């Protein structure tokens, strides 16, 4: 693995921390959920109305309790993922309400889309988890949507997945489903099997829905990504330093709460901060500023001794075109080389998180494969220096017929899965562009994908739970 590089000096990290502590001590963070306020009050913090003021020592002590690394368990142990330190985890985009077709036609996402995105993630060599809300299926009743979504992850793949953070009831259902799958709540408390995404509301607030879910997951010992999305210029200062401090304050406040409730609960420091487009007011994510936020956040997380979440194949483009390519490569490469551990939105995202696309998913899958090969680095084992082969081939010879070449090329030289490397005439037969190849590829992958079998008894137990809960809430 390539070493991860730092984009900040240690003095700069210290400055961010100092400014963050000043925000937490003098301005505070608003928590609108009474039970959360009670937790803070019982710890002796000053609470005025909904506003909580955090003391330096308290925050620093609490954040230290969160682990630097944890394992998330999959129903197939080969697909377990380790989150933190040198590890990297890629997964599809999260939360988009729309799907853009190859020609840019926009439509509401459906449950069929959801299933297909999971299958494509399941089939991918480069996506380590199938993620969470890969899209928001508009054709499923909102009250049972979370049940259907988790079921799709379980049925269509045996990789790790995420649970719902939409309030206490859905959080409890998610943990219950994971418990059924893995053999009980005690089992998953020891071996966490589910992770959720808790978002603050910037600047400096957390809402009821997210706080309810945070408390449920913390009590059950299940990991959470605690994330902030600062839009520099609108929900945060136009200066990146100030926005980074606001983000840092929100995330540390959230992490502190999790550790108060259940010390040692795994958390991931999350950032999706980016910029406001100053002409329109929209969020813009496919840019160097977003990459800077991701890289700085990865380093801050290392400073605090916790894993980080950030980055992805991020773009503001509406189709899987050239803009989508260059923006997504920038953000994924930056995130991956600077050590983001949990990369939500690695694949499929278009238009500043508003949409997913199957073509974009395949483009990003290729980008992910390229980046993973890059960060794998160069193998300098003695055999790889190939001295004896070089001597045998000698000046003016070639290596194509060497056993060493036949043995090593598959390991050392990555095959492109989407990129076209043909001769001109080869390409000219069909004259495809990336979007067209991607359009064909996702259909081919889906057609040949076989979801891993699920134990019949487990399936029945899951079906029964979902039927019971659906009857209760509908």
């Amino acid at each position, binding site marked *: 693995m390539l070493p991860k590089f730092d984009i900040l000096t240690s003095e700069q990290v210290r400055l961010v921390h100092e400014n963050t502590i000043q925000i937490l001590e003098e301005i505070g963070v608003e928590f609108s959920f009474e039970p959360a306020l009670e937790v803070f009050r019982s710890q002796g913090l000053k609470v005025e109305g909904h506003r909580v003021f955090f003391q330096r020592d308290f925050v620093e002590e609490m954040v230290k309790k969160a682990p630097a690394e944890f394992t998330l368990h999959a129903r197939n142990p080969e697909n377990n993922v380790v989150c933190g330190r040198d590890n990297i985890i890629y997964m599809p985009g999260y939360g988009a*309400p729309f799907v853009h077709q190859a020609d840019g036609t926009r439509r509401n996402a459906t449950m069929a889309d959801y299933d297909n995105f999971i299958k494509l993630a399941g089939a991918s060599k480069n996506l380590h988890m199938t993620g969470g809300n890969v899209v928001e299926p508009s054709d499923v009743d909102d009250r049972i949507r979370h049940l259907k979504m988790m079921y799709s992850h379980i049925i269509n793949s045996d990789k790790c997945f995420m649970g719902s953070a939409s309030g206490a009831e859905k959080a409890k259902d998610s943990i219950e489903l994971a418990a059924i799958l893995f053999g009980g709540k005690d089992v998953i408390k020891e071996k966490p099997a589910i992770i959720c995404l808790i978002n603050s509301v910037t600047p400096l607030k957390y809402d009821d829905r997210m706080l309810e879910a945070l408390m449920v997951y913390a009590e059950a010992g299940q990991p959470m990504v605690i994330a902030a999305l600062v839009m520099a210029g609108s929900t945060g200062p136009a200066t990146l330093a100030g926005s980074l401090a606001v983000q840092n304050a929100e995330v540390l406040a959230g992490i502190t709460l999790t550790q108060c409730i259940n010390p040692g609960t795994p958390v991931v420091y999350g950032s999706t901060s980016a910029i406001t487009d100053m002409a329109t007011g929209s969020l813009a994510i496919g840019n160097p500023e977003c990459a800077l936020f991701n890289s700085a956040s990865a380093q801050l997380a290392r400073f605090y001794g916790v894993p980080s979440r950030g980055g992805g194949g991020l773009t503001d483009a509406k189709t899987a075109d050239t803009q989508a390519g260059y923006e997504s490569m920038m953000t994924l490469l930056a995130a991956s080389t600077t050590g983001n551990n949990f990369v939500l939105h690695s694949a499929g995202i278009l238009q500043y998180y508003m949409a997913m696309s199957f073509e974009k998913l395949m483009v990003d899958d290729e980008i992910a494969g390229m980046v993973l090969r890059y960060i794998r680095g160069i193998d300098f084992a003695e055999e790889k220096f190939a001295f004896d082969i070089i001597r045998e081939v000698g000046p003016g010879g070639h290596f194509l017929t060497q056993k060493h070449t036949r043995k090593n090329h598959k390991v050392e030289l990555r095959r492109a899965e989407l990129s076209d490397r043909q001769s001109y005439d080869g390409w000219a037969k069909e004259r495809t562009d990336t979007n067209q190849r991607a359009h064909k590829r996702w259909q081919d992958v889906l057609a040949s994908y076989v979801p891993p079998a699920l134990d019949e008894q487990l399936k029945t137990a899951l079906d029964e739970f979902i039927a019971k809960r659906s009857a209760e809430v509908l």
Partner: protein
Amino acid sequence: MMELFEEIKEAVIDGDEDLATELAEKVLEEKLNPVDAVQEGFIKGIEEIGNSWKAGEAFLPDVMMAADAMKAGLAILEPAIAELGGSDEGSGKIVLGTVEGDIHDIGKNIVGALLTAAGFKVFDIGIDQKAEVFLAKAEEVGARIIAASALLTTTMKAQKELVQYLEEKNARDKFKIVIGGGPTSKAWAEEIKADGWAETADEAVELCKKLLA
């Protein structure tokens, strides 16, 4: 007199709320025509900023600060305008808010500022507001448009509930309902029988102008 109106125009263009307030007070002190002050000063200023913005020379902070400056100045002059018998019935009144269960508001705030800049009178009721509050405010101020924002797929349905609530209270015909926010769309607006939808803040302004034409 024209010099003072020119200064007002510049104060709006510079987004200087304090200066705009000060100059509005001067208009009253010197007993100048407040309606002319609005037309030749505040409105000329906001129009110029608006044109700069469309030309890509000015940006959102410029437009929003200009709107705030105009709003502050107008607040000073309103009583005097009312006394002259001039009413603000001409400018459309809009009640703007984020729906129940949703506390996101940056988009709503941008829309509010642009609507103000376009000459509408905006009553922003804030975040996480029940349908009852939207209606109560609209009736209180005599609004013509109710504008509801939602950022989450889980709170979008409150926009549908808002339309249904107005129908229940036999108030649906009194107001135009427009919606917006990330996961919303034209199709959604049609499904819930809203009167309009806009994807961006400046489209929202055009929509409101069209609805009140």
